[in-house]
């Protein structure tokens, strides 16, 4: 782990004493692609009077000692590469792509002011990539070029730190192996994470080792591999309900379970699951996930989603299927209780497994002050206003504000 205290443009790309400098001319070439006419790279810092609009994805810079040895498999390294080597992390920095894509609902991230506490990007030095598509380019190709470019850029930035001494070393706990039938330690409950990945087609897809998880049954994966970026977001809908690549790399549920491993639980592992679009497939996937967790010897699972009401049903069906299979379940939900908070909070609640965590009401309004500068575009189309203007917005447009993966501290409760 290398702590980043500043990021600046100019000079050679290097990392020294917490300061990351960027050779923009050189780094821009990472995005050479027939689908992109040009890219611009700039930097915004925590506390700045700045707003990033049309945020698409955020990636934490990470690298391996040897070139691309198992980092972002399927995009930067070969899809089936696995690495046991150390991962170098630039903590406190992020690569952010921002700009117009079709079907991308506009997300915004403020670096200061009342929305700053709602978004993880307000506490990172952000290397923001804006882009102009090549004329006539297919939008899917534009999105693909940006995605792989952002991952390569994140890898290149962290590579600059590989030769420097780490500020901190984190030894990630491997999941507890299933207990032996007779002699196992059953004194602590074995709890795992089920992370649903949105799989709704172009611009609403999430990739595992470079391929959409659509059509796949739920998969048990090595939780260490998500640190190396096996899960990459290509999902640009539902701004506040997105799971950016950055948060898959730092899966908050996995981190919370690891933090208490051996204290009051055993971390049992991670299952990735698609969010199918058809009801029958949702039900099948829920049952498969429940049976998988039961067979893995889990006592309980924490289920998370990505997306809106449709995705609630994937969580609820899994929770009920888990409890039917004898695995205790808790799910994370964002509430959709209306602007005044008086409506029913969840569209598709579970029926039997009713333990729900609230990541906040996405309809509640926020007043955002004007900012000195905006990146990602000059307009905020949702309100047809200048991107740097003061605006009233629902929490739903603040990037990852209701983090389905549990990053935030936002929640909702009944008043009075």
């Amino acid at each position, binding site marked *: 782990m290398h702590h980043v205290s500043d990021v600046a443009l100019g000079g050679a790309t290097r990392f020294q004493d917490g300061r990351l400098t960027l050779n923009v001319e050189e780094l821009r070439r990472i995005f050479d692609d027939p689908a992109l006419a040009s890219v611009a790279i700039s930097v915004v810092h925590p506390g700045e009077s700045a707003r990033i609009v049309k945020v698409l994805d955020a990636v934490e810079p990470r690298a391996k000692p040897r070139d691309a040895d198992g980092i972002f498999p399927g995009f930067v390294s070969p899809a089936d590469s696995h690495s046991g080597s150390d991962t170098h992390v630039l903590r406190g920095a992020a690569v952010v792509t921002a700009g117009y894509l079709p079907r991308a609902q506009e997300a915004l991230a403020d670096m200061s002011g009342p929305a700053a506490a709602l978004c993880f990007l307000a506490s990172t030095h952000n290397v923001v990539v804006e882009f102009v598509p090549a004329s006539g380019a297919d939008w899917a190709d534009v999105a693909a070029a940006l995605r792989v470019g952002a991952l390569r850029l994140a890898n290149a930035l962290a590579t600059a730190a590989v030769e420097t001494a780490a500020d901190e070393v984190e030894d990630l706990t491997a999941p507890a192996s299933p207990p032996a039938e007779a002699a196992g330690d059953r004194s602590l409950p074995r709890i795992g994470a089920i992370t649903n990945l949105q799989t709704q087609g172009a611009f609403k897809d999430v990739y595992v080792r470079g391929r959409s998880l659509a059509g796949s049954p739920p998969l048990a994966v090595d939780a260490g591999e998500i640190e190396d970026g096996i899960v990459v977001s290509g999902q640009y809908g539902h701004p506040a309900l997105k799971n950016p690549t950055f948060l898959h790399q730092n899966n908050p549920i996995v981190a919370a379970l690891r933090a208490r491993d051996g204290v009051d639980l055993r971390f049992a592992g991670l299952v990735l699951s698609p969010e199918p679009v058809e009801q029958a497939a949702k039900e099948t996937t829920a049952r498969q996930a429940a049976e998988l967790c039961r067979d893995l010897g889990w006592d309980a699972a924490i289920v998370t989603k990505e997306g809106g009401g449709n995705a609630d049903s994937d969580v609820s069906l899994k929770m009920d299927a888990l409890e039917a299979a004898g695995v205790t379940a808790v799910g994370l939900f964002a509430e959709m209780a209306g602007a005044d908070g008086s409506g029913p909070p*969840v569209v598709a*609640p579970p029926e039997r497994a009713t333990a*729900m*965590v609230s990541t906040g009401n996405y309809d509640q309004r926020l007043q955002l002050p004007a900012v000195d500068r905006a990146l990602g575009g000059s307009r905020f189309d949702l309100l047809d206003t200048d991107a740097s203007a003061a605006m009233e917005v629902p929490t739903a447009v603040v990037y990852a504000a209701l983090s389905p993966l*549990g990053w935030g501290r936002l929640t909702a409760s009944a008043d009075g």
Partner: protein
Amino acid sequence: MRVVHYINQFFAGVGGEDSAAVRPERRDGATGPGRRLDALLGEEHSVVATVFCGDDVAASDPDAIEQILQLIASTGADMVLAGPAFGSGRYGIACARVASAAHAAGLLALAAMAPENPGVGEAAAVPVIESGDTARQMGPSLERLATAARELAAGKPAASLDGLIATTRRVNRFSDHTSAARAVDLVLARLAGDRAATEIPLPDFGHVVPAGPIDDPATALIALVSEGAVVPAGNPDRLESARAHKWLRYPLQGRDSMAAGEYQSVHGGFSTVAANADPNRILPLDAARELERAGRIGKVYDEYLVTAGNGTAVGDAARFGAEWAAELKRAGVRAAILTST
């Protein structure tokens, strides 16, 4: 106090659904359930007049509420009591709007309905008193309304009236712990046997009794309605692609089909490429016209009603539904085909 009782056409004895289009009217004294209400209000208060209106008119015609208010004002009333509307969405919305208008005009006002009635969300500053789900609970529902009315007349603050439906508002706040950490706490609590632990209470969506099948489609007026956000190209009325707070209406008269290029879907929840290539696949006007020509259905209604069903708050969706029902029934529509996406 001089009290005006607002009820719908059914409780006024004018008729059922077939009379839901009657315009606002006023009668002197109490009518129907108002007689019992008048008795329950005691010596100090008296129902001096009853104002009623067809549900479809009251829930969908913006002028109706103004007319109702004028009828109320003409009685010199001090207080308006609306309902009880039980679980009926259109009646509940009408009661809420009538009571709100009376409140805004400086009168004391109460509405009564079931807690899951979409009218509860329309009542704005007016207290809503709980009633049962159906008219079978008329007796106790009127008792609660009368008790609350006497309290309100005696100067009791609206927020502490007996029988008040507590509009629980869910408010965002920051916890000391991340959602992930709280999820771990919650799962441990549930493992320890606390089956009630949760941060979100299970919602009550109420219950809608499905309408019966129509007896003769060949003579029926059939409407096309959709949450697929199909709007004229360019989205002139700026329908939201997500979290819609409104619905829109567009004419179908003289059209055989939803032509590509003339209509588009602005729905934010799915890829609109296929929908825009043939908007009939969201709003099936082409197929409906075929059925119309073949005499399988009587006539396609001349307007379609549309919103975007993407991240819509349940309260807004319930209100849209009640308003659509009122609108279509008022126009004599017998059945609606609601396409979802």
